[in-house]
């Protein structure tokens, strides 16, 4: 299997292409082909993973063909299968297959289900290319591919204006990040003459030749790309709006896989990020700010999917915190990413199941008491909830707690800052997730008229159960085995080990204490339900309901001047450029209109002009002869 890695990408790509090209002919069986493709990729990926485990060098590279060859720029269509891409392949295809299966049930009544699976498979193919590429251009290719699939799927129900707008918002905000990423690749090529990760003087081997300033610049540009794709501060605003897409899309693309591509990018580029301490501080700050923003806004939202979306923003903030800390924390961020892939996909699909039973209601103020009616969804969601808030021994505890601990190990006063933020985030996470859970499944019923909640069909709850099992057991597995498994990728990273500012056991206790306090507070506040409409609240809650005014900020600082600029340019175009062209045309037209008047139709005037011409010629001749 390790010699034909391209199959992993080709299978979903071909399947997606078939689904989109065959059209209505594939309507009856298309969704099953759509489920089969990632499942086959998963099996192949698993075989490759096991085979890689049996090898000593832990990295397989394949150059399929020369992709771009212009002058000094030589880029191969090359694949790299190493422990890091291996775990990503398993996450993408494994969780992806389950979500595909779920979508068969969830999208059953949608007449464009085949198209949906076509896009979904294209997404899986692009995401696999993203993690399997052996150079930055391959990564970029996959990066843009998932961006396209994300856009198509967010605005899948394009006849809803909000969905169409959300798709555009996601695409445009991603463009900001992608521009940064592209510039980073250009800069790497200019400075090093290569964009390959390793081998033949690849980027990672020669990053030491670069000046600190260049490394910082490359890193910031890469971080900009990562922030765009992963919904991190300051480019986080698109991710919650992306929930306008169908719920399986939110689960797969905007929770489990695509939005973690930024974490992958930084983890993959660990030699660059480890080479500059300032850069690491920037990454950690982005992570810490984002995780707090996500928690605070998530606690004030009433839309079940948006709460989960802000929770995703916040959890990816933890991952950025991890990759920013560097050293051993790279692997911690990756295991948190994997665990998050399980429990967040689980909860999103659970939310989809709730919406399915409640006629697409998304307002948690209108749920309540669903635990009796949707037992499986309730239990599986509970696993996800316990996992994300970090109750031992579920996965979140094993993966989040080490990141918090690592944040306290920076060796100077920043430990308190970042560690404190991470700890506070844990408490807030417990608060808003408990609020979501209690308001949805417990307390008095606050349904709208005519609701008959019911459990979803088996094809939807089977993936839920499997993901719930993953949420429960994955954490321990990851803490113990995946970290060592990832060693070959991160072993080049120098770890300047600092002592933790407070002992590990105390952090552990504090983490659990914060979680329990947050969860308990939310349980007490919301067990009796809540008002049906948002009530007036203090400045903090109001700000959180308005996304901490980040959207307003973007509108005032970027959108308005942008609009003015557009208007000014339109004015210049209309008056200046068009004016010049139109003026020339008017000059020629008007001039010829006047010249035309010479054709009077009177023979006499023609005769006069002929005579005048003759006299003129004669005069000229005489002047020459006699002169």
């Amino acid at each position, binding site marked *: 299997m390790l010699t034909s890695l391209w199959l992993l990408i080709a299978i979903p790509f071909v399947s997606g292409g078939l689904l989109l090209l065959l059209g209505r002919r594939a309507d009856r069986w298309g969704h099953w082909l759509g489920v089969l493709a990632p499942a086959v990729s998963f099996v192949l990926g698993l075989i490759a993973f096991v085979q890689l485990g049996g090898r000593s060098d832990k990295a397989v590279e394949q150059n399929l063909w020369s992709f771009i060859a212009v002058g000094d720029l030589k880029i191969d269509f090359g694949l790299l299968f190493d422990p890091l891409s291996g775990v990503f392949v398993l996450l993408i295809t494994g969780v992806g297959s389950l979500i595909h299966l779920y979508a068969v049930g969830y999208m059953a009544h949608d007449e464009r289900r085949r198209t949906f699976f076509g896009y979904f498979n294209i997404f899986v193919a692009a995401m696999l290319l993203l993690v399997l590429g052996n150079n930055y251009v391959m990564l970029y290719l996959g990066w843009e591919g998932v961006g396209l699939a994300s856009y198509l799927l967010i605005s899948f129900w394009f006849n809803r204006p909000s969905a169409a707008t959300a798709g555009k918002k996601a695409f445009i905000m991603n463009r900001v990040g992608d521009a940064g990423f592209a510039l980073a690749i250009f800069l790497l090529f200019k400075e090093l003459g290569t964009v390959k990760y390793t081998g033949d003087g690849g980027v990672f081997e020669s990053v030491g030749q670069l000046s600190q300033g260049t490394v910082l610049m490359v890193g910031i540009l890469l971080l900009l790309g990562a922030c765009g794709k992963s919904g991190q501060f300051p480019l986080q605003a698109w991710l919650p709006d992306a929930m306008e897409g169908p719920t399986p899309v939110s689960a797969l693309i905007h929770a489990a896989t695509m939005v973690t591509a930024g974490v992958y990018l930084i983890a993959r580029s660990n030699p660059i990020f480890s080479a500059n301490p300032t850069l690491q501080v920037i990454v950690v700050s982005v992570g810490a700010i984002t995780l707090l923003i996500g928690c605070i806004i998530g606690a004030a939202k009433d839309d079940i999917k948006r709460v989960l979306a802000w929770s995703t923003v916040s959890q990816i903030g933890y991952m950025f915190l991890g990759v920013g800390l560097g050293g051993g924390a790279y692997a911690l961020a990756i295991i948190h990413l994997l665990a998050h892939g399980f429990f967040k996909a689980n909860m999103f699909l659970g939310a989809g199941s709730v919406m399915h039973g409640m006629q697409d209601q998304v307002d948690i103020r209108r749920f309540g008491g669903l635990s009796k009616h949707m037992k499986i969804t309730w239990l599986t969601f509970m696993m996800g909830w316990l996992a994300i808030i970090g109750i031992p021994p579920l996965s979140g505890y094993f993966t989040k707690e080490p990141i918090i601990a690592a944040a306290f190990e920076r060796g100077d006063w920043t430990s308190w800052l970042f560690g404190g933020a991470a700890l506070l985030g844990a408490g807030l996470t417990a608060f808003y997730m408990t609020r979501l859970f209690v308001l949805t499944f417990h307390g008095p019923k606050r349904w709208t008229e005519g609701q008959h909640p019911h459990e979803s069909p088996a094809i939807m709850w089977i993936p839920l159960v499997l993901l719930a099992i993953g949420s429960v057991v994955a954490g321990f597995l990851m803490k113990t085995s995946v970290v060592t498994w990832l060693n070959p990728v991160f072993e080049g990273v120098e770890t300047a080990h600092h002592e933790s500012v407070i002992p590990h056991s105390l952090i552990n206790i504090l983490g659990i204490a914060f979680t329990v306090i947050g969860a308990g507070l939310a349980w007490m506040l919301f067990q009796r339900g809540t008002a049906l409409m948002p009530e007036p609240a203090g400045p903090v809650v109001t700000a959180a309901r308005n996304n901490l005014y980040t959207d307003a900020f973007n509108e005032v600082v970027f959108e308005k001047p942008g609009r003015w600029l557009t208007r000014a340019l339109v004015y210049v175009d209309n008056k200046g450029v068009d004016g010049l062209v139109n003026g020339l045309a008017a000059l020629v037209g008007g001039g010829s209109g006047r010249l*035309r*008047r*010479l*054709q*009077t*139709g*009177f*023979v*006499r005037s023609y*005769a*006069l002009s002929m*005579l005048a011409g003759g006299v003129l010629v004669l005069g000229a001749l005489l002047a020459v002869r006699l002169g």
Partner: protein
Amino acid sequence: MTPMWYIVLATVLFSIGAVGVLIRRNAIVLFMCIELMLNAANLALVTFSRINGTLDGQIMAFFAMVVAAAEVVIGLAIIMLIFRTRRSASVDDANLLKY
């Protein structure tokens, strides 16, 4: 008698013809003025031939006469037709072909 007078006569005739073309409106008169100019040119050609002692000018004059005869035939026919359709022989009335 020097040939110079013939040239002067030709010039005078040509001028009369040219002025006639410019100021008269009747197509027939116009036509006669054109003939006057042609014949003035013929007279000049013959005179120059005489002055130079060659026959080139004479030959040219004959050519001009033949062409003028043909032109008269066609020209008169056109004038006739215009008169029939428009009931007028004034060239100013036939001014449709313009801007």
